[in-house]
């Protein structure tokens, strides 16, 4: 059976780096979920799609962009009106979802190979990410489970808050190494650990 190869290759350097004298500010890891899927509803079918997502992924989603949920390694959040990014530790989420999303409800695209999932976690996660994204990462503005679709110059990025001090970032795979290196450099001042 074929196994997905990480796009990070030689730039993945496990261990502690940067200014760790005062402790590790963030841990950075590639989460490698089994499935990353984008699902989108037509105008007026959003609720049906949300219901299908609830059935398949087991997550109740609020209506609208930005809202989301994360539980037991499965995540879902709105990235645009009627559009959701879904993550699951199991492979085959797209196929499972397609069984419940007929063409008159919406579309499903498998992006499991097309995106890298990076987790930035720790007390300085907000600080490090604020260097790259013009987003308010405070918990009031960016509550647990919610997500944003944003951009850092050339890096189109979708971000979900998966824990109070953790964010999962989804980036186009071909940009993975460049972004990873930039992220690590940005975390040097607070000290970081690569898992």
């Amino acid at each position, binding site marked *: 059976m074929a196994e*997905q*190869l990480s796009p990070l290759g030689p730039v993945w350097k496990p261990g502690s780096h940067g200014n760790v004298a005062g402790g590790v500010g963030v841990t950075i890891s590639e989460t490698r979920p089994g499935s990353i899927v*984008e699902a989108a509803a*037509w105008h007026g079918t959003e609720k049906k799609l949300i219901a299908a997502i609830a059935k398949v992924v087991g997550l109740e989603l609020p209506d609208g962009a930005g809202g989301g949920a994360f539980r037991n390694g499965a995540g879902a959040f709105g990235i645009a009106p009627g559009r959701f990014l879904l993550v699951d530790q199991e492979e085959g989420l797209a196929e499972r979802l397609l069984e419940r999303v007929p063409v008159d409800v919406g579309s499903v695209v498998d992006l499991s190979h097309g995106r890298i999932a990076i987790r930035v976690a720790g007390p300085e996660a907000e600080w490090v990410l604020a260097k790259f994204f013009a987003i308010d990462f405070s918990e009031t503005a960016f509550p647990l489970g919610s997500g944003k679709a944003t951009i850092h110059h050339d890096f189109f990025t979708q971000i979900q808050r998966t824990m109070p001090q953790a964010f999962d970032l989804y980036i186009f795979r071909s940009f993975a190494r460049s972004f990873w290196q930039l992220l690590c450099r940005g975390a040097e001042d607070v000290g970081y650990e690569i898992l």
Partner: protein
Amino acid sequence: MSPRRSSSGGRVDRARAVRFTFDGRSYTGHAGDTLASALLADGVTVFGRSFKYHRPRGVMTAGIDEPNALVTLLKGDVREPNIPATEIEIYDGLNAVSQNRSPSLAFDVGAINQYAGKLISAGFYYKTFMGPVIGPLKGTRFWMFCEHFIRRAAGLGHAGTAADTARYERMNAFCDTLVVGAGPAGLMAAKAAASSGARVIVADLEPVFGGAAKWSANLVDGQPAPEWAAGVSDELARMENVRLLPRTTVWGYYDGNTLAALERVADHKAQPDIGEPRHRHWTIRARAVVLATGGFERPLVFPGNDIPGVMLAGAAERFAGEYGILPGERIALFTNNDSAYAAAATLKYSGATIVTVIDVRPDISAAARDLASEAGAELRLGHAVVAAGGGKALTEIKVRRFDAATGMPSGEPVSLAVDCLAVSGGWSPAIHLASQAGGKPKWDEALQAFLPPDPMQNWIGAGAFTGGTTMAEAIAEGTRAGLRAAGLPARTVRKTPEVSEPALDPSPAPVFEIRISGKAFVDFQHDVTADDVRLAHREGFISVEHLKRYTTLGMATDQGKTSNIPGLAIMADARGLAIPEVGTTRFRPPFSAVSLGSVAGERVGHIRPDRLTPQHDWHVEQGARLYAAGLWYRPMIYGAPGETVEQAYVREAKTVRGGVGIVDVSTLGKIAVQGPDAAEFLDRVYTNLFSTLPIGKARYGLMLREDGIAMDDGTTWRLGEYDFLMTTTTANAGKVMQHLEYFLDVVWPDLKVHVTSVSDQWAGAAVAGPKSRDVLAACVTGTKVDDETLPFMGIVRGAIDGAPVMICRLSFSGEMAYEVYCGAGYGLQVWEALIEAGKPFGMVPYGLEALGTLRIEKGHVTGAEIDGRTTARDLHLGWLLSKKKPFIGSVMMDREGLVAETRIQLVGVVSLDGRALAGGAHIVESGSAEKLGESIGHITAACYSPALGKYIGLALVRGGKNRHGKRAMISDPLRGRFGPIEIVNHIFFDPDGSRMHG
């Protein structure tokens, strides 16, 4: 201890010596000193030379408004010029040099300019442009003669050429309230807002918060003001909802309450910590902003007012109060307002002898009198300084009676021996940010100052920024502003700290200049004198904007912080108008100098990210020479040892034609087009039909822009009834995606279609050549790949080495070829399996050069031909223009200009002199290296064709087809290439396509 340093007082740490170098000489200061305070403590009087006249200049201010004491900092090979010494925190090893002098600060040959007199007065270089009207150097020749000397003499510091190795970064911040300025008003605003639970950011350009409270003799709630300010700062630092940003200059106020700030994170350290940037650029989005930016003291204009030792009274007070330094031993003060009296008292308290206080006003407030008495100063009311004397240090001043109402001096001058003259010409609120936010400043007659405009964005002013002159006002206003910013009513205030301070008169006398013969400077940084302003007036440059440009008043690094109002006042006097009638220039960002590194942030060196295919590491391991194709890195050739680029690509292309080759095509744009209306959408987007495409088949398609010009091409695969995979050129992937999204969102929102970029989902490999089917047959499982199962443009699904793949039989090379797609995570594994399977067939990997060669031989177009100017017909793609349906561009594509016979058209060209052709070379009908002919087109791509054994190319040529068989010349003067060519059909090889269909 230096004789100028008092034994106590101020916030410097006398126990910590700091050693630094200025102009090669070692000095010792204390922790907490600025370069200016440390040098002053050591008795240094001259810090730099002036811009034009090279006059010796000392320190004039104690802050960011410093016009004179600009120095260059050296760190390794990197030099940073024009930094105010008043803003440089010293550290062990700091190395600064003075600037704009040669050979030394003490002896500067440029000082001869002082005697050039009116030759280099205002506008002299504009006049130099015109030159004298007679003689050999008339007109521009005179300018060309002078230019070298003027350029050498002018300018401030010199930038270095070494690359800046410092680290910079950018930061985004969001807050409920941004407080700009951490003086008493700012501190109280922050405290009030933060206490209500608001998220607050406090930024101040100084390393220590407190503003004027740091050196004030006032008492706040019975505490010395510096201690009170430190206490409030500590309180704020302990609050979780407050972020303090010392050493941070908020320099720009933009729309949507977005502000830009520069944090000097590590400038005060010999070495930054690990990962610490030198500067951090902040973009702050604030719901509300409190502007508590204080004010700038103005100098008075009189002859000799630039001699080292003449400084602003507030600066002298600050040097004494904050740094424990006496700027002189025998000090006189010269003022038009009460604030200088507080300075006199502080200076006296610090140990100076206050010789006299000279005030242009005939009478002053009782509180000011008391302070003068406290300072032990002789009071000279109704007097003015009419001259200051000394060379590199002030030695004496001359004082005469003065009538503030008429501006006329009278009586005999009295000479006084002093080594410091502290001057105050009143205060100007620092309204720069408010002005940037929009609105016109308002003149206040009582304060003789421009006050902030009415807010056009959500900001609230407080303290000296609004014209307040007392600390009590600052504290009260700051508190109210903080509450308002947090959305609370002002009555929420229960009690504000009580301030014990003298009841000084806030209004200065409207006196800006003591008009006496002699060089009296208005703009110290640009050597603009009062006479220069009057000259501008006489020569007709009377608008403030013209005044600025003609005289350079208010330009350069200080942007006129000390000079704008005196300059305006003198122009107003010359025009017989009131100051507000003359107007004022509005402020624009930045408030003060901003390092370019901070704006670039992390984007230095290789400023754009690399996009890498899943097979990238394999290409590198195989020694492929890579080059950038947009953001992508793609193999150019897989060169064997000793091979030239041409030899390599010819070998690779030959192998494809004769056997089989494999190329990485993962970079192609790929877009999932899904939905019940997907086929209809594609019919509208492409010029040809896609609704008729059967499932499991692909079709080549062409898109036009709305104006009828060709936009992009590629194949689209029908994977299901409502599921298409569109491929685009690598370069246009993003553009096509935007194009599709635009039409779906804006033009046809009724269509049920979703488009999603899946470019990175799929890794791709094209296997091309007569033996390509054999290679696939050797490694693909789960499907046959014979002609029946997989015909031209057919699609099958199978597996290679256990990884699911999708294979489409299509060809860019003109050979039988297949594109193999798999999940990008399996990309390397599938590629290596294909390579292994290809070994028995002699398969080689080939790069973009060979790919380009193969397509040129076939006359296939790419972005070089679909260049935003060509139509489908220009490229012989008219057969793709469906007549059965409308499509984007169909209305406009038949415009007269787009179907004209004279348009450029795709042709082939063959070199007739056996030499290589090059893309970009022009094609001319006649001409030579000496005489260039008229261009009839240009070469878009060229190569050596192994199939033809010739140098060939594709070209866009006027008349196109009609020139087939005709001779022409290529003309490439930039590369020195001229030679004969023949124009031929654009399809050089296998014109009937039998090889790819075979």
